[in-house]
């Protein structure tokens, strides 16, 4: 457990996964785990879903970075929901000192055009904001070179179906802009995204479709030269019945109902044939589920990435649940 984490040098953690696999939950847990190590961490979302504020049960988060957790050990977690219009305005201001022109652009509908229609631009702006946060230095220029505003940034990225296009800003922009400042910006972003300072983690469930999408996404990410991080398996059902007993259930031993009935009676549970049959049916379904999970896990393991497992929390994930998951990620050495 004291071994150096494979992601120790990573400054930008990008978390993706099929819709419904819990990528916001995993991104939140990862960010919280980093903060609990005493780091200053930014957790960013880019789809205006307010997933972060809902996960941590805090007021809606906007384009202003807001501190949502302060750890006793000094760690801090900030959250940001990137707004594409404001990113464009910031971008115009930063590179062109165009405060007033920005307003003019807004008036003629160019901002609408750029942020909702022009392909690629939207993504460049969204990821550009994250890029800026990764590289930002604290305070004025006189500070130490290493005095970065954030020790780590965790991005709750779009789902697997869209993530490669989202991250592959260079290719996207190349379609429309071969030269010019947008292109230069896209190039710097791409340099960060393809470096060892970035890791793209894929969240999966042990079900067929999420696993298939994860495998596809890993291949696509790798084809786009994006640095693969870990596979995080979410909602793992802990085996509640021992392997030997599972085999007994799977075999369908005839005497099983009678023995179970006797066991239950011995601890004064009032039984009925239907109830005992029901308990056994539940176990049979569980056997099927376990087999399916093993099958799907083998597919993920064959990807030869680091794999971390988060337990299914039967009570659901609220802010307390995220803490539990953050500790699990730390214990398993993800960070």
């Amino acid at each position, binding site marked *: 457990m004291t071994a150096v984490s494979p992601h120790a040098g990573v400054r930008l953690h990008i978390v993706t996964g099929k*819709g419904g696999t819990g990528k916001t939950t995993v991104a939140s847990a990862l960010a919280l785990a980093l903060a609990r190590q005493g780091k200053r961490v930014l957790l960013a979302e880019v789809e*205006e879903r307010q997933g972060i504020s*809902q996960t941590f049960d805090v007021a809606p988060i906007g384009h202003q970075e807001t501190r949502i957790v302060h750890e006793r050990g000094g760690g801090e977690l900030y959250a940001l929901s990137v707004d594409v219009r404001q990113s464009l305005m910031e971008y115009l201001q930063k590179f062109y000192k165009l405060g007033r022109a920005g307003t003019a652009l807004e008036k003629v509908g160019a901002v609408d055009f750029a942020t909702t229609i022009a392909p690629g631009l939207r993504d460049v702006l969204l990821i550009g904001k994250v890029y800026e946060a990764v590289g930002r230095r604290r305070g004025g220029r006189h500070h130490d070179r290493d005095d970065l505003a954030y020790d780590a940034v965790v991005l709750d990225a779009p789902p697997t179906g869209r993530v490669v296009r989202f991250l592959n800003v260079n290719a996207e922009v190349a379609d429309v802009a071969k030269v010019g400042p947008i292109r230069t910006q896209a190039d710097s972003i791409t340099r960060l995204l393809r470096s060892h300072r970035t890791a793209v983690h894929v969240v999966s469930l042990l079900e067929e479709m999420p696993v298939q999408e994860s495998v596809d996404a890993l291949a696509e990410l790798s084809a786009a030269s994006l640095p693969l991080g870990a596979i995080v398996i979410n909602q793992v059902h802990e085996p509640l019945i021992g392997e030997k007993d599972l085999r007994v259930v799977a075999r369908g031993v005839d005497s099983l109902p009678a023995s179970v009935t006797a066991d239950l009676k011995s601890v004064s549970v009032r039984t009925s044939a239907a109830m005992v049959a029901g308990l056994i049916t539940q176990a049979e379904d569980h056997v099927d589920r376990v087999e399916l999970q093993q099958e799907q896990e083998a597919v993920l393991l064959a990807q030869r990435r680091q794999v971390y497992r988060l337990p299914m929390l039967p009570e659901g994930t609220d802010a307390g649940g995220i803490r539990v998951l953050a500790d699990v990620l730390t214990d398993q050495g993800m960070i």
Partner: protein
Amino acid sequence: MDAAPPPPLDLDALLRDDATRIVVCCGAGGVGKTTVAAALGLRAAEAGRRVVVLTIDPARRLAQSLGLSELDNTPRPVVGFDPAAGGSLDAMMLDMKRTFDEVVEAHATPEKAQQILANPFYDAVSSSFAGTQEYMAMEKLGQLRSKAAREGTWDLIVVDTPPSRSALDFLDAPKRLGSFLDGRFIRLLMAPAKAGGRAYLKVFSGGVTMATSVMSKILGGQVLQDVQTFVAALDTMFGGFRERADATYALLKDPETAFVVVAAPERDALREASYFVARLDEEGMPLAGVVVNRIQRLAAPTLSGSRALAAAEQLAERQSGSGNPSAVSETAGLTEGLLRLHVSLAQTADRHEALARRFGAGHPGIPMVEVPAAASDIHDVEGLRSVGEALAVSAPARR
């Protein structure tokens, strides 16, 4: 006091009603929309309807079982369904790019179409335009509906919607395209192409001139030029596009359409479902009801979770115990396992139940049906049939 339970959603009645011509399944990603759409299609076909299912992005094995090996925009008969009732079942997967190309080809002269398809900007727009997939799904729906009316091939179209960035994308797509085409900025971009040369400078106010020059500075002149050519080429077909967008919107509002919102008993998915329900209502879209998919059910509901936990602990104590080993049965460990599994399932079932109940209370009068979670993934016609059965059980509300 609990609120009155929601009325049951009777999907069988909906599917068997000849007046129902389109069923749109929508909901957050990962809730089983595609499976529900396919199961509804199968059930309707086996009740005698002639059905086509339009899927967007099915799981590989599910697609294979439906006979969809390619993403080629062609409806193909589904193998393994039971035609005894006189129905038919076709399925197809949406090819977004191809559909866009077809729209362009249908609305422009061959020469113009050529120009548009060859423009580098078109390539980018047709594959990554925000909402392209949503728009194209709706476009394809419109096409299928016309074909059905023209040729009598199908009398029911079941559509699975794309896993949208947000709940609203797919309803907004037709309108957004319209406003894109009507946008002032687009008009502005087209001005030079129309007026020729730099004459437009005189026409527009200083602010606008500044805006174009800024855009040109940021994007680079070549981009703006590509956009201008593209937009000018599209201009001829603007009317057609907008008409189509309006027609699609009208089709969605028509009483022959029924929206089925699919949700899973998870906070986020239900929140998304709430958006859908509110939005459909706001737009006056015909909402049939909500399917709460994958609800955990207990096979031994008479045993409470807390009683099971107490019994499991007693059995555990006895096994580890100091007492007489002969008093411990051989299956004590197994029975303890069954009980612990039951405890966990009961906890999940309670949570699902509470979430569904709260959702029902928050949307009074909206018909709802709950579908129990299957033990394994659904990837064949047999599995879809059982999902269809579960969907159709218009179980009187249990609460």
